[in-house]
């Protein structure tokens, strides 16, 4: 990163980026919850040209047994890029990059899930990148947290994720592919909006201290926007049919076999 050169103008005279955005503008984000029937919870995210599916299974019995934690559940993520997700065919299977992303995503989600409710169990999260265009770890984490909530897993809050970075000497939010490839730096951030905690923070490339602070704030601001869209996606899934009556069954109703 930063080492590569290009004749693409990452920022034009009018302060517009390659895809016409301003430095403060994010790519359009669309989230759909509950798209997979077989999974306990799922979400589909379209973020610019990124297309990411996330599926959650569990809490379920943890295999292999020696991985079980007798006091809490394990959140196990698997991030995978489809062979057709990038221009050149991506060689299928786990590699160093996807292992790293799986690990940091698991850790970010473990922080918000009430793992102590499910001792010895495992909550499995699968993130499949169908189409990649920079920022897939953020899109993956965003999708995964919606899928977890959709699965009914008890958690403290959703995790929202967004990146910021620097390209053409300007700090900007949510880098696209060209900006990521030919820009100077990229900072993906995972954020818990309610408590303002950061659960994922990485940096690739070089930034001055001022640029870093500016970028981080931009990313957090982006996360807050992502959070609203996540909440909306979850509510939308049930809103249309959530006007019902028999829900408030009296205490004890529904207990025992009729």
């Amino acid at each position, binding site marked *: 990163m930063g080492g590569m050169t290009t004749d693409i103008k990452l920022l034009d005279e009018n302060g517009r980026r390659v895809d016409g955005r301003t430095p403060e503008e994010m790519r359009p984000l669309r989230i759909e919850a509950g798209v997979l029937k077989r999974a306990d919870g799922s979400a589909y995210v379209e973020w610019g040209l990124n297309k990411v599916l996330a599926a959650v299974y569990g809490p379920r*019995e943890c295999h292999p047994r020696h991985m079980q934690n007798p006091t809490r559940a394990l959140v196990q993520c698997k991030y995978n890029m489809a062979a057709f997700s990038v221009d050149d065919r991506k060689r299928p299977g786990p590699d160093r990059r996807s292992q790293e992303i799986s690990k940091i995503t698991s850790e970010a989600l473990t922080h918000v899930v*009430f793992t102590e409710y*499910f001792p010895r*169990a495992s909550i499995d999260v699968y993130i499949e990148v169908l189409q990649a265009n920079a920022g897939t770890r953020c899109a993956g984490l965003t999708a995964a947290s919606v899928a977890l909530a959709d699965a*009914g897993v008890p958690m403290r809050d959703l995790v929202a994720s967004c990146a910021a970075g620097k390209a053409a000497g300007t700090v900007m939010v949510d880098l696209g592919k060209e900006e990521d490839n030919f820009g100077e730096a990229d900072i993906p951030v995972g954020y818990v909006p309610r408590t303002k905690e950061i659960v994922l923070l990485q940096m690739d490339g070089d930034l001055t201290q001022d640029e870093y602070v500016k970028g981080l704030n931009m990313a957090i601001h982006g996360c807050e926007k992502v959070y609203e869209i*996540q909440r909306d996606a979850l509510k939308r899934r049930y809103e249309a049919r*959530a*006007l*019902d009556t028999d829900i408030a069954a009296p205490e004890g109703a529904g207990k025992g076999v009729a």
Partner: protein
Amino acid sequence: MQASDSKEASREIVVPGDLLDSSGKEPGPGTYTEGRNIYAAQLGIKTVRQNVVGVVPLSGQYMPERGDMVVGKIEDVSASNWLVDINAPYPAPLHVNEVPWRVEFGETRKFMVPGDVVLLKVVGVDETRRIQVSMNEHGLRKLTGGMILDISPSKVPRIIGKNGSMIQMLKNATGCRIYVGQNGRIWIDGELDDIIKAVKAVKLIEEEAHNVGLTEKIKKLLEEGSRKGE
């Protein structure tokens, strides 16, 4: 329509992390607290009953509780235990002392084999979530014949209805024998046509669990079916 509009206001969907109350009410199921604030821990519908704020989940795994009736499938057999899948995150061993027959050591296979379906009661869940199930109670037994239907465990209360009204209606209209396990497994037995009708109704309930006029819809579906049958 007007009736549903007035109810809309009270059916608020909440997302994990939503603030439910900060006026000092009691936290109910599906919530967590921080200081005086109560937050939602699950995706669900906010409910306030007297002084308790809770969340009725819209999805989620079955978590066994003491006293639950469940429909289980025998998964494995050992010398003094059957391992039963009760659709929970944890396995449920059924000990030979917990069945209504006298079973000699090592003769467990003579009574039940993998694939058999049983009606059980959860008699204990400890803090490490180890489960004990029993078949030693009136009405609990091995289920033969019929069919099993899996639904989302969070929809079980809708299938049963207020004080069992929904399930009673189903039974009366179809003439089927039906057991609804708390774990989201339903066992249905009867004449083939009746079973098909019951399955249709159960699926509709699951799909439209949170819609207005669910009972009416089901009633209509069941009546339609019986008219055609005559």
